[in-house]
């Protein structure tokens, strides 16, 4: 059984998000869009190991640099 060595957590900085919705398109398992189009992390934002790549891809495609990823609580 795989026990991940790190806990990855995604968070959307709501002050930066402008609703481009790239994160939810690329990683719908991790991000959701509200009724005015802004994004937020689903649930507590903890990323299952099989979705680590998607989390980083979502961050790399956000035009507003609104996605933060932390590894074991530290900024990644």
């Amino acid at each position: 059984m795989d026990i991940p060595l790190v806990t990855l957590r995604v968070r959307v900085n709501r002050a930066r998000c402008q609703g481009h919705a790239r994160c939810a398109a690329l990683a719908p398992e991790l991000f959701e869009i509200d009724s005015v189009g802004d994004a937020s992390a689903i649930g507590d934002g903890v990323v299952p190991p099989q979705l680590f790549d998607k989390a980083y891809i979502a961050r790399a495609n956000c035009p507003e640099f609104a996605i933060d990823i932390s590894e074991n609580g530290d900024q990644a």
Partner: protein
Amino acid sequence: MKPRAPVTDWETDFDVLDPRWIEDPFRILDQLRRQCPVAHTDRFSGVYLPTRYQDIRAVAYDPEHFSSRRLFLREGKPPVTRAPPLTSDPPAHYADRKMLLPPFTPAAVAKYEARTRAICRERIELLADKSTCDGACDYAQEIATRLTAHMMGLSEDMGDQFRTWIHDFVEVSMTDSTAIPRVIAELDEFFTGEIAKRGLLPGGDDLISYLMDARVDGKPMSDVDVKGTMRLILFGGIDTTWSSIGSSLWHLATHDEDRRRLVAEPQLIPTAIEEFLRAYAPVMIGREIVKATEIAGCPVKEGEMALLSFAAANRDPDVFTDADRVVIDRAENRHVAFGLGIHRCIGSNLARMEMRVAIEEWLRAFPNFVLTPGASVEWSAGGVRGPRQLPLTLGKARMPKPPSTAFRAVNS
């Protein structure tokens, strides 16, 4: 259009209406970025042109100095037009935008995907007996005009009228100051009629009905703002999207390898669409400098304009690897085709859906299409760039098929 004085020096006298710019603005923007990252022109009463990603970003994030009350380059006295939330600045902008956001979320626009696909197939079916077509007029423009009309509850057959209004408002108005008042008067009359129809039959689920009932800060919008926003939806949704679909078709018609790959791997189309948006970002939009400041250390004067070319930002090699190459599987693509900051294109989710469906359906019907050899492509002039004439050879089987068979082939 009257002949214009040719550009003598792109750094101090750039002109977005120069034929060289219209044909290929990217080379000029690349050269400016290397040599003079904030260019200027005295044309259009004075315009600054930043070409580096960081500088374009900084202007977009600074509505205090760079106002949206004037957005378009025009010779002569600029007309004052209101089209909230596009022309709004903080603090009013927030409520204006919030009013218009709900019908344009990804979930809201997904409801229009079926109609979009049907429009694409109807247009493709009309080409069943043809071996060539104009990809701009016969396909790209039809999709954007018909879907926008559908969403607004207008006749889908008004495309020619919409195209005339848009051409006059966006292109002709740059050098002819009579165009804006004329288009606005005609549109006001048209929208007055549409509003009256809905007054007799309230409760419609189209966007005009939505705006008639909309509240900003709890209050109904003024008649001027309602019609301004209707104009924004009509114009903003049409020529930008048809330009982007057209540029995508142009790329695929001229790059066999990319076209073949998308035919073989249609699941890659959404990623390719993002790359087409990056490389051929259609929109340039201005800001009025309302307080003297600087862009990248270059002082800029109050009363002049700053012009944001999102394609220039998207082709900055400091931010994008192989910035001048179209890489259809580019995984990291932080492009700014839809703008940045508080004025992010409100229709971005809609445009993406339309582009994806348009390319999916087109490639399924015409996997071997190419640019017609020897025929010339005509590009628009001004703030929205895309092909206005795109001669394509469809590359179907040589035997003409009866319509019923052709229809099955399209849908198989």
